[in-house]
């Protein structure tokens, strides 16, 4: 989730939520090797359920316009993330 100034591109706020699993060995330590993993902490999105997330933030007092974008990525590897869905909305704050 990113809120930025539409004219300069300056980012005012950035928020992120991640969903993944943590593999744990028999002593509760995080592991990567499939042969080491005996338990998991399931931090993924469960099937057939929806998950609400909230991002609530303020902007600099003189902000007149902001572009808020929400993008859902699926990351195959650390640096290989595919944008799956996106919603963008421009908000205006007229001078009081």
């Amino acid at each position, binding site marked *: 989730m990113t809120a930025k100034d539409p004219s300069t591109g300056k980012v005012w706020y950035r928020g992120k939520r991640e969903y993944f699993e943590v593999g744990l060995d028999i002593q509760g330590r995080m592991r990567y090797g499939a042969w080491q*993993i005996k338990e998991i902490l399931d931090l993924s999105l469960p099937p057939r359920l929806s998950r609400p997330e909230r991002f*609530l*933030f303020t902007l600099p007092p003189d902000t007149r316009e902001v572009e808020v974008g929400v993008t859902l990525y699926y*990351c195959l590897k650390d640096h290989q993330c595919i944008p799956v869905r996106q*919603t963008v909305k421009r908000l205006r704050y007229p001078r009081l």
Partner: protein
Amino acid sequence: MRKTLARGAVVVCFFWLIFPLRAPAKKLIFPEDKLIDNFDEFVQTFSSRRCQACHPRVYHQWEQSYHARSLVDSIKRMASFFAVGIPKEWQKPLNKKEMLKCFDCHLPQIRYATDRLALEIVGMLIEAQKARESGDKVRFRKAYSRLSRLNITCYACHNIVVYRASPGLFGKPDPQTIYTSNPKKVKAPHATAFAPTLKTAAFCAWCHGIYVASDGEKTMCNTLSQSYYHGYIALGGRKTCQECHMYPPGRGHRFPGAHDLDMLREGLGLDAEIRGFRYGVEEWVPAVDVEVTLINRAGHRIPDG
């Protein structure tokens, strides 16, 4: 006379064009209890190319699947298990029983390889990973190109692992029979048999879940079908793996998953309500409230596989 010969030639050409001369399909023979020691012979014996002539469309789909890259796509993890996991952490000898903890799913035909050949393949995986880490592209490409000839072939699913979901009921598959999900009798250069297991989620779950080796060791790759059974099915989901990953048009033996944008869009929904307002008392600061709802429509948790 000349006219008759010409007519005859035209008739022969006509039939030649309509019914091209084809050698009768060669009978497919697979090894029974014989172990193969030669790499090329091993590759050729189980190669999906043997099925390509009669099943070109399915072959082309399979070629694009991750089943066709089952070894080269997991070099790092398998090399790590063979170089560190077994010898250093478990302090066990690297034998076929231990290798099967990876290969039973990634290369099921390994059961028909000698211990020496199995070790040769493990050596290639370790060599590929070492070359990758050291940035030696030539060495890496050499190992990679050999490893890319090894994969989950047609014979693996349509014979070797076909009854894994219920070995007690079905017993051992006959090595000379190709098992299909088609209950009709068909004429083929190999024996065919109907295997109802091929249409079930249990068939896929053997590998796409917690793998239990013959010695009871559990191997948890990041493919946990448990969320399918305890999350999706338990909450009323009723589709099988095949119904999403195989049956829709354009999928088939390609078995698309998370690497396919259409699959991701099908499985993941996003609803975002974005509202601007002014926050505070008297000093009205611009603020934003973003309410996001993520919907997992897949038959398993995400990320998963």
